[in-house]
C-alpha cells in the first residue's frame, strides 16, 4: 500500500504521471529523474575513467623507462623536470586505483546503469525515492572534491588498501599528511552515496515492480543489481566505521584538543621517522580485516551488475532464452553469500591465524563454483543461437573469456601455499585487471552501446565500435597477460623501480612492451569517447526497440519521457522468450505483450506457472496469499516458493 508520508516529500504517490515541464536546472542538473541521474553518473564516470587511465599511463611510463622525463603529464604533475619521484609513483598507483574503483567502476555500475535501468526494466515510473536518488549522485561530488584535494596535498600514498601504519601515522609517509585524511573523508562520502543508492534500489526492486513482474520474471540485470545493493548495504558500513577509526587515529587537532587521537590501529612502541615512540596498544592487522570485509564484497559489487547486463545482452544478441535462468539467479546470490566469508584471502601472508587462513582458503576456492556455473551458462546461451556479431556481442564474448582468465588466475591465489609466493607480485595485478578491466569494463562498454539507443534515442556507430573493441582487446591482453609472467618471475607490486634488484633486471623489455600496449589501449578509449559524444548528436535515430529485445524497457519510447511509460505496463512473461514458437514471423516476444486469448498455457516456459498469462490474475496481486517479495533478500530458497505462488 502506498501510504503517503505527509512529512516525507521524497515518497510521493507512485503513479503520478502529471509532470509539468521543469526548468533547465531541475531537468539537467538537480534532476530527480532516474534517467537523468543515470546519465549524469555515466558522464562523470567516463571522465573519471580518462583520469584514472592517465594515471595508469604514468605508472606504466615509470616502469618502462624509470626516472626518465615523462612526456606531457610529467610537466604537469611531477615537479622536477618531469621526472617521477618515488613518492609520486606511490601516489600515482594509489590514486589510479582509487579513481578507477571508487569513481569509475562502482558508480558506473550501480550509479549509472543501476539508476537508468532499474525502474525501466521493472516497469516503474521512477525510483522509490527520487530525491534520495538525486542526493546519492550529489554526494559523489564531495567525494570527487576531496579526492581532488587529496591530489592537491600531494596524494594519498599508501595504496588503495591503506594499510596502517603507513596510513595511520602521518609521520610514516611524509608529505601525504593531509592527503590521506582527504582520501579517507572522500571514501566516506562514496560510502554515504552508495548507501543511499543501495537502500533505494532495494526498496524500488522489492516494492515498485510493475504488475506481473514476479521475482522470477525479472531480468538478470535486476537480479544482479538487487544482490549488489544487498552487498553494498551490509558490507560498506564496516568500511565506513573503519575509515572513521583511521581518521580519528590520524587526527591532529589543536587548542584544547592538542594531542588527542585514537589508537585503534597503532600499537605501542613504534618509532617512525625518529618521532617519539607511539603509545597506543592497538592492532594494525585489525584494519585489514575490516577493510577486506568490505573490499572483497566490493570486488563482486564491481562484477555482479556487469554479469547481469551481459546475460541480458547475450540473450538478446544470440536470439535465445538465457540458458538456465534460475541457476543464473541463484549463482548470483551464492557468489554474494560466499563473498562475505572469503575476505581473509587477501591476508594469507599477513600473519593471520593459520586456522583462519585455512577456512578462508576453502571458502575462496568454493566461490569459483557459482562463477563456473555462470560461465557455462553463458556459453550455453550462445550455443545454438543466431548470433549477431555486433559490437555489443563482441564485448560480451570478451567479457566471458576474460573473466575466465581472471577467475582462473584467482584459483592460484586462493591456494594459500601458492599465494605465499605470488602474493603482492604482478600476478595479483594481472588477476585483478583481468577481472576488473577484462570483465567488468568490457561488460560496461557493451552495455553503453546496448542501452545507448534507450538513453538518447540514437544508435552508436558500429564501425568505430568495432575498431575500439579490437584495439582495446588486443591492447588489454598485451598489457596484462605478460603481467602473469612478471608475477611468477617474482616482481613485487608497487615498486617504483624494480630493476635495482638483480633478479628483475631482465624484465625491463617486457615492461616496455606492456607500456606500449597500454598506450594503444589508452588511445583506443578516445575512440569510444568520440563515438559516444558524436552519436549523441549525429547518430542515426531509432525507434523504441532497435534490437528487437524483450525487456520492459524496450516498450517505452526512446528516450523515455519523464515518468517512463504512458501507462504502467503489465508483465506477462519472463524477459528471455527469444525465438519463441508462440509467435510467427519474428523471434522475440516482449514481456509486456499480451498474446491473443486462445493461447495455450505456455508449456515451454518452466518459470511461469500455468495460466499466469491471463490479465485477470495479474490484476489482483494484492490478494495473493503470500507477499511476493518475502524471499528476496538473497535467500533464493524462500523466494522461489513464494514467487511461484504469487501470480
Amino acid at each position, binding site marked *: 500500500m502506498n501510504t503517503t508520508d505527509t512529512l516525507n516529500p521524497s515518497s510521493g504517490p507512485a503513479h503520478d504521471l502529471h509532470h509539468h515541464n521543469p526548468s533547465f536546472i531541475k531537468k539537467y542538473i538537480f534532476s530527480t529523474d532516474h534517467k537523468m541521474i543515470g546519465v549524469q553518473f555515466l558522464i562523470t564516470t567516463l571522465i573519471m575513467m580518462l583520469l584514472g587511465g592517465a594515471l595508469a599511463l604514468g605508472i606504466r611510463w615509470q616502469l618502462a623507462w624509470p626516472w626518465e622525463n615523462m612526456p606531457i603529464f610529467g610537466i604537469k604533475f611531477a615537479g622536477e623536470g618531469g621526472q617521477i619521484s618515488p613518492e609520486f609513483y606511490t601516489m600515482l598507483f594509489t590514486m589510479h586505483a582509487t579513481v578507477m574503483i571508487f569513481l569509475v567502476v562502482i558508480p558506473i555500475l550501480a550509479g549509472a546503469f543501476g539508476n537508468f535501468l532499474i525502474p525501466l526494466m521493472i516497469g516503474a515510473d521512477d525510483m522509490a525515492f527520487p530525491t534520495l536518488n538525486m542526493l546519492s549522485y550529489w554526494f559523489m561530488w564531495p567525494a570527487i572534491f576531496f579526492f581532488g584535494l587529496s591530489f592537491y596535498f600531494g596524494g594519498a600514498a599508501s595504496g588503495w588498501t591503506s594499510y596502517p601504519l603507513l596510513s595511520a601515522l602521518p609521520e610514516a609517509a611524509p608529505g601525504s599528511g593531509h592527503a590521506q585524511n582527504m582520501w579517507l573523508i572522500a571514501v566516506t562520502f562514496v560510502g554515504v552515496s552508495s548507501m543511499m543508492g543501495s537502500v533505494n534500489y532495494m526498496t524500488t526492486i522489492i516494492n515498485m515492480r510493475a504488475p506481473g513482474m514476479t521475482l522470477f520474471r525479472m531480468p538478470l540485470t535486476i537480479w544482479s543489481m538487487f544482490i549488489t545493493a544487498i552487498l553494498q548495504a551490509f558490507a560498506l558500513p564496516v568500511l565506513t566505521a573503519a575509515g572513521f577509526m583511521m581518521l580519528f587515529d590520524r587526527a591532529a587537532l589543536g587548542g584544547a584538543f592538542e594531542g588527542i587521537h585514537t589508537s585503534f590501529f597503532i600499537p605501542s612502541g613504534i618509532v617512525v621517522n625518529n618521532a617519539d615512540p607511539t603509545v597506543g596498544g592497538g592492532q*594494525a592487522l585489525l584494519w585489514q580485516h575490516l577493510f577486506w570485509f568490505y573490499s572483497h564484497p566490493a570486488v563482486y559489487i564491481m562484477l555482479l551488475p556487469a554479469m547481469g547486463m551481459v546475460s541480458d545482452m547475450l540473450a538478446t544478441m544470440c536470439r535465445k532464452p538465457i540458458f538456465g535462468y534460475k541457476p543464473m539467479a541463484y549463482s548470483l546470490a551464492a557468489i554474494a553469500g560466499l563473498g562475505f566469508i572469503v575476505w581473509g584471502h587477501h591476508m594469507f601472508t599477513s600473519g593471520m591465524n593459520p586456522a583462519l587462513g585455512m577456512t578462508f582458503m576453502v571458502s575462496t576456492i568454493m566461490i569459483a563454483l557459482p562463477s563456473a556455473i555462470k560461465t557455462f551458462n553463458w556459453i550455453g546461451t550462445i550455443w545454438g543461437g543466431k548470433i549477431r556479431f555486433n559490437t555489443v556481442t563482441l564485448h560480451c564474448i570478451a567479457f566471458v573469456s576474460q573473466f575466465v582468465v581472471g577467475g582462473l588466475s584467482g584459483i592460484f591465489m586462493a591456494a594459500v601455499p601458492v599465494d605465499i609466493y605470488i602474493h603482492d607480485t604482478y600476478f595479483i595485478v594481472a588477476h585483478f585487471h583481468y577481472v576488473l578491466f577484462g570483465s567488468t569494463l568490457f561488460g560496461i562498454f557493451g552495455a553503453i552501446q546496448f542501452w545507448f539507443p534507450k538513453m538518447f534515442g540514437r544508435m552508436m556507430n558500429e564501425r568505430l565500435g568495432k575498431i575500439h573493441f579490437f584495439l582495446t582487446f588486443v591492447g588489454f591482453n598485451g598489457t596484462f597477460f605478460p603481467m602473469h609472467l612478471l608475477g611468477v618471475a617474482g616482481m613485487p607490486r608497487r615498486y617504483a623501480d624494480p630493476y635495482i634488484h638483480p633478479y628483475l633486471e631482465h624484465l625491463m623489455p617486457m615492461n616496455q612492451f606492456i607500456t606500449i600496449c597500454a598506450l594503444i589501449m589508452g588511445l583506443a578509449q578516445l575512440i569510444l569517447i568520440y563515438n559516444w559524444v558524436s552519436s549523441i548528436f549525429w547518430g542515426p535515430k531509432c525507434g523504441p526497440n532497435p534490437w528487437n529485445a524483450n525487456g520492459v524497457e524496450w516498450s517505452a519510447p526512446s528516450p523515455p519521457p519523464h515518468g517512463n511509460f504512458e501507462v504502467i505496463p503489465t508483465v506477462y512473461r519472463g524477459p528471455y522468450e527469444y525465438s519463441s514458437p508462440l509467435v510467427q514471423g519474428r523471434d522475440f516476444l516482449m514481456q509486456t505483450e499480451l498474446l491473443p486469448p486462445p493461447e495455450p498455457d505456455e508449456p515451454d516456459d518452466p518459470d511461469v506457472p500455468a495460466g499466469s498469462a491471463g490479465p485477470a490474475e495479474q490484476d489482483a496481486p494484492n490478494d495473493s496469499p503470500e507477499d511476493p517479495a518475502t524471499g528476496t533478500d538473497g535467500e533464493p530458497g524462500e523466494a522461489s516458493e513464494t514467487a511461484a505462488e504469487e501470480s
Partner: protein
Amino acid sequence: MSRIFWCLFFTFWPIAAIVVCAIAPAMDWGFPGNREAATPLGQRIDDLFYLILGIVTVAFIGTMGALAYVLWKGSKNEDEKGWFSHGSHNLEVIWTIVPSGILLFIALYQIDVWAIYRVRDYENRDADPRPTHLVAEVTARQFEWRIRYPAPGKKFKTYKEVKDWLARPHAGDVYAVNKLFVPLNRETLIYLKSGDVQHAFFVPDLRVKQDAMPGQSIDIWFTVNRAGKFNLTCAELCGWGHYKMRGEVEAVEDLQAQLRRLKSLQDYDGVTPPEGAPGELEGATP
C-alpha cells in the same frame, strides 16, 4: 565475412595465450633464475603451482574451446530462429558437480603444505624443539633490514629462553644490516618484527614470504638446501622507498664462523685490525 573474422579472433587468442605460457620458461620469464626453489617447502609450492596450472589449463582450453565452438556454430546458423531452449537440468547438474569435485580436491590437497609452512602447536610450544633453531631476529624498518643474531655459540634449549632473548638486546649479540646468513641444510627459524610500518620479508628463490606486522613478532622457518646468495625484497608497501629495501640472504655451511667474523668486525675498536680483508666487511654494521 566479418563473422568469420571474429570467430577466428576468439579462437586464436586463447591459443596465443597458451603459446606464450609454453615458451615462457625458455624465455626466462618463469620462476626467478629459471630454477626450482631452494627450499623443500618451496619445491612443494612449485609442484602445487604446476598442478593448479595443469588443472586451470584444462579448464581454460575446455571453456575457450566450447566458446569457439558455439561461436562457429552460431555464426553459421541459417535457421529462421535460434534454438528455443531454457537450459538443461542434466547439464546444470554435471557442471555443478564436476567443478565442485575438482575445487574441493584443490582445496584439500594443499592444506598439508600450508600446515608445514605455518601451523605450529602453540599450546605446547614450550616443548617444541624448533625454537632452538633460532637463527636471528629480523626487524624491518623504513627502508632496511636490521638483523640481530645471538652471540656466536649461544644455544637455546627452551622456548622460554628464546622468548627472553627476543624481549631485549643481550650482551654479545651480533648486529647486521640487509645481509642475513642462514645455515645450509638445517632448519632456520627467524623472528620477524617491524620497527615502524608493515613490511614483508620476501625471498623469491626460497618461496618465502611473511609480512612484518608492527607490534608482533612472527616466526618463519625454512630449510635452505642450495648454497648461494638469494635476493631479499620487501613485498608490502611501506612508503616511498618500498622498492629499494634490497637485502640478501646467504646460505652458508658454517654459520657460526660467519657470526664470529661479524662479531670481530663489530668489536673492532679501530686499533687492532679485524681478522679478514676489508672486502669481507660487507654485511656488518660499521
